[in-house]
């Protein structure tokens, strides 16, 4: 029972603290307007180059932008504790590590899915992209799975953040990698083979492909394989990330370097 309390309430409290930026003055510019401009930039480049339709860029960039809240928030909910000098208190507490760390991931997944869904909606409205009404529910599911998967990568970033001081740079680099490799803006088949291989092992890639097909009218059953791959990758990343956090915690205890990194 106590573990469940730590999982849900601890995670929510941490997320709300993180959003000292829950203020609309931060949330709206960063997570509502900025993704819309990312969509517009690439949609207009797409119109110039003829690479894809507006729908291609709206779906691709909306889902890829989930990586901003998922990577940055997940990294900061854990690594950010060090900057606030509260990490040591958390690590000496008797609460289960799964409850502490994975509980923080749940609000991040929900927020990431919300940001992606809102970007889809706003981008679609501004660029007059039509999605069949029957596709909306499956699309929402794909968006949620994609946010889940990306949060798994966020857990790895959080683990690295316990060692690397410049977590913002790390998250920016991961964001850039996802922007290039996931097919958000460049069709995967036009990338060199080695890049396509990497793409297949990254979160968001399969989610974007599934979302594009669903937006074109495919059913959830048609893209179940892609969604399953996305979910499996997310779980694998989450397990790896959790293991990395535990490893970093043990190392920090051994070297007495919890707050110095």
């Amino acid at each position, binding site marked *: 029972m106590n573990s469940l309390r730590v999982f849900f309430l601890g995670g929510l409290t941490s997320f709300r603290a993180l959003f000292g*930026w829950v*203020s609309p*003055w*931060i949330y709206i*510019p*960063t997570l509502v*307007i*900025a993704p819309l*401009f*990312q969509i*517009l*930039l*690439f949609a*207009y*480049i*797409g*119109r*110039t*180059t*003829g*690479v894809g339709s507006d729908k291609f860029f709206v779906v691709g960039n909306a889902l890829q932008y989930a990586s901003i809240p998922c990577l940055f928030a997940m990294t900061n909910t854990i690594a950010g504790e060090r900057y606030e000098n509260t990490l040591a208190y958390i690590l000496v507490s008797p609460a289960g590590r799964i409850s502490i760390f994975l509980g923080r991931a749940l609000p991040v997944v929900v927020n990431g899915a919300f940001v992606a869904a809102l970007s889809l909606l706003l981008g679609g409205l501004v660029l007059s992209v039509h999605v069949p009404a029957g596709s909306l529910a499956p699309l929402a599911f794909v968006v949620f799975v994609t946010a889940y998967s990306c949060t798994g990568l966020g857990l790895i970033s959080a683990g690295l953040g316990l060692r690397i*001081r*410049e977590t913002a*740079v790390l998250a*920016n*680099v991961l964001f*850039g*990698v996802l*922007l*290039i490799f996931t097919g958000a*803006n*460049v069709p995967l088949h*036009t*990338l060199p083979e080695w890049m396509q291989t990497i793409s297949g092992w990254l979160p968001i890639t399969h989610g974007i492909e599934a979302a594009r097909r669903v937006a074109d009218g495919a059913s959830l059953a048609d893209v179940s394989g892609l969604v399953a791959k996305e979910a499996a990758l997310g779980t694998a990343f989450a397990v790896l990330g959790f293991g990395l956090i535990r490893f970093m915690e043990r190392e920090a205890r051994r070297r007495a370097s919890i707050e110095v990194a």
Partner: protein
Amino acid sequence: MRRTLSVVRSSFRFHLKATLKSSATIMFMVIVPIVYATIAFFMYRGGANEVAVVWIAVAAGIMGLWSTTLAGSGMALQRERWAGTLELLFASPPPFAAVLLGVALATSATGLYSLVATLFWGWAFFHMPLHLAHPVWFAVAVPATVLALGLFGLLLAATFILYRQTFALVNLFEYPVWLITGLLVPLSLLPGWVQPIAWLIAPTWGIKAIHAATTGGSPGGYLAAAGALALASFGAGVLCLRYFETLARRRASLSLT
């Protein structure tokens, strides 16, 4: 005047050295434009001629220049506030605008890393020919645009003074300026109401000058427009700073705003 220039120079040198000591900042300056250059190379591949390919690399570098200026200048005051040195800078005899100008110029100058990195990236991985239509004009247009960006950065830094969550604005302004200055998308493709906004921004004309120097054209007029608008940005920035300084002193809220 000489003393003020000396303050600008010292602030520029100090901030430049401090920035170049941070490997994370340099990594950010190099990697971000390379990401966008890579995407642009792939998106334009097949449809772009030799001249357009060079411009893509230069444009991605300028995108990096803008990101660096925005992050550096926008956060300049916030960093001083966090470090507890903002009050000392305001209370010291030299004009604060001179200190901030040095910071703004230093951040835009460090953005040159972005330009060099994307040119190298394009040459090494995308077989981009390093051919410029007017190399001398290019050598003039780039520092002039850096200067224009720096002065525009001063205006940004001044207007961000009353906004505590500066980084949110920094994130917000990155994409729109990339879009409306016509870096990778012709302005004619954008809605008509966007163009007058673009004309009011000094970097738009600096970018046009660099474009003309890269692909062929006459950059002189664009440089003159960029210079005039940059000076206007500087004047508006100084006025804003004076007003906000008075406001902050009166309210005793310098470290709180």
